[in-house]
């Protein structure tokens, strides 16, 4: 029997009987959800110390030192939404929004805009942008294996504002009737395009390598390493080459379009990914004694 108390108030919520030493936290969550139907398992968070960190679904009661009469502290994580749902929403928006600006400029810039020709690079940019987000959508469905099933519902609004907002911001200026093509002409456009394509392939390669690292249906964690695909060799220098490639792709897009809004989008994305990369890098270092020390988080030798 385990007592369940509120992490904040310390009040007793209920006692759960049907548990063994080898029962996992997930079993606790299932039992709790049976009694308190509002709190589906993904919404439950448990701690052994009210101010400590949350325990994992896979931990057994005995591994946590919990015996008959022990206490677990409950935290309501709030309404949850699936990661897949969030990703599809946040990525579909930019695809649609950019294409509206590109395909129906008269809606945004007035009727005259429909007749005006686009510079070559504007077409290429639309292609790149669409490819990037189509790739993300497909990866969400076919490639990624998520550790957590859900995240708090507020995230879907926050993330969508970011992605959709920036999509409109960039699209508005690249597809604008008064858009000015790059100063160095074709060299800049095709050079940028080449770099973009390489970076996208790199990012995809790393995503696939990461997927293959984790057997289906498990939440197993292993050290990611280079594979036979040369794009993955960046693992030799950084923990999160997928972020490195992504930042590079947007840098390439910015150079290709010579568009400051795209540059701002790249900086915002790079900042966020750098934060994530440092977190993951730290986790890897903590979790694996033999983690290669040569690696940086996101920028080789630097960050």
């Amino acid at each position: 029997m385990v007592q369940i108390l509120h992490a904040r108030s310390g009040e007793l919520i209920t006692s759960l009987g049907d548990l063994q030493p080898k029962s996992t936290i997930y079993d606790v969550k299932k039992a709790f959800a049976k009694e308190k139907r509002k709190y589906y398992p993904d919404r439950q968070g448990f701690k052994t110390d009210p101010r400590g960190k949350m325990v994992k679904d896979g931990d057994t009661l005995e591994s946590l030192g919990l015996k008959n009469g022990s206490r677990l502290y409950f935290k309501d994580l709030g309404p949850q939404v699936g990661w897949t749902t969030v990703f599809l929403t946040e990525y579909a928006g930019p695809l649609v929004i950019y294409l509206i600006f590109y395909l129906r400029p008269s809606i945004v810039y007035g009727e005259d805009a429909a007749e005006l020709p686009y510079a070559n690079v504007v077409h290429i940019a639309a292609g790149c942008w669409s490819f990037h987000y189509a790739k993300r959508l497909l990866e969400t469905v076919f490639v990624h294996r998520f550790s957590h099933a859900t995240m708090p519902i507020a995230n879907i609004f926050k993330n969508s504002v970011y992605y959709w907002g920036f999509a409109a911001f960039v699209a508005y200026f690249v597809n604008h009737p008064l858009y000015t093509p790059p100063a160095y002409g074709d060299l800049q456009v095709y050079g940028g395009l080449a770099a973009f394509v390489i970076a996208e392939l790199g990012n995809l390669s790393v995503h696939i390598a990461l997927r293959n690292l984790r057997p289906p249906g498990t939440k197993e964690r292993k050290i990611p390493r280079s594979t036979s695909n040369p794009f993955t060799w960046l693992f030799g220098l950084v923990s999160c080459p997928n972020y490195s490639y992504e930042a590079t792709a947007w840098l390439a897009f910015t150079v290709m379009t010579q568009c400051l809004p795209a540059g701002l989008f790249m900086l915002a994305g790079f900042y966020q990914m750098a934060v994530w990369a440092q977190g993951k890098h730290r986790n890897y270092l903590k979790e694996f004694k033999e983690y290669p020390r040569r690696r940086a988080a996101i920028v080789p030798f630097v960050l």
Partner: protein
Amino acid sequence: MATATVKASSAGGDGRRKANPNMGENNAVKAYLVAYNVSQMLGWLVLMIKIIHHMAAEQDVETLYAQVEPILKIFQTAAVMEMVHSAIGLVKSNPVLTGFQVFSRVFLLWGVVWSVPEVQTTGYILCFLVAWTITEIIRYSFYFFSLLGQVPYFLKWCRYTFFIILYPIGVTGEVMTIYLALPHVLESDMYSVSLPNTANISFSYYYYLCFIIFSYLPVFPQLYGHMLAQRKKIISSPQRPKKE
């Protein structure tokens, strides 16, 4: 089982937690912060005296700003140091929140009042000057005493009570000043960039200011509510031990 680490708690005054543990007991840091807070306190005091003197003697709001401009510029702009203090851990406050507060003041001063001389003669200047001055004198004194170890209850009371009227007065002054600046900004096209250009970006300072005005709507109630909540926690019963 878990050993509780005993934190060297030195006087942090009321609610002002000790900063970066490495700097915690550092006397040089403390001396510097005391000097900073005292300087600010004195600066805003001088400003208040000037305002009172001018309004009593001249009774003319239109010439007020010209009188106080140099001092205001120095001491309000110096508040940028608070962002630095917060960012490097000298003071334990939220760097983002501090940045936001300092930025909004400095922006109004330089981005609106200094940039659009036409608004320097309106009565709304007096509104926010009064609000800022009183608030800052109280705030810096509060910090000064916190550094010394104990804040007089009266000062604490002032800090968490005066805002009730000062916030609305100050916000009114600020918003109206920006509003009155709008036509001049539109006409002069200041700080704005239009297409076409090689960076492929445009920026309209006029629309930016409109956005700032609108942002007061959600932001002000939040800040005000936060202060009210703080007041309840801190003022309600200083004698009774806090119940958790």
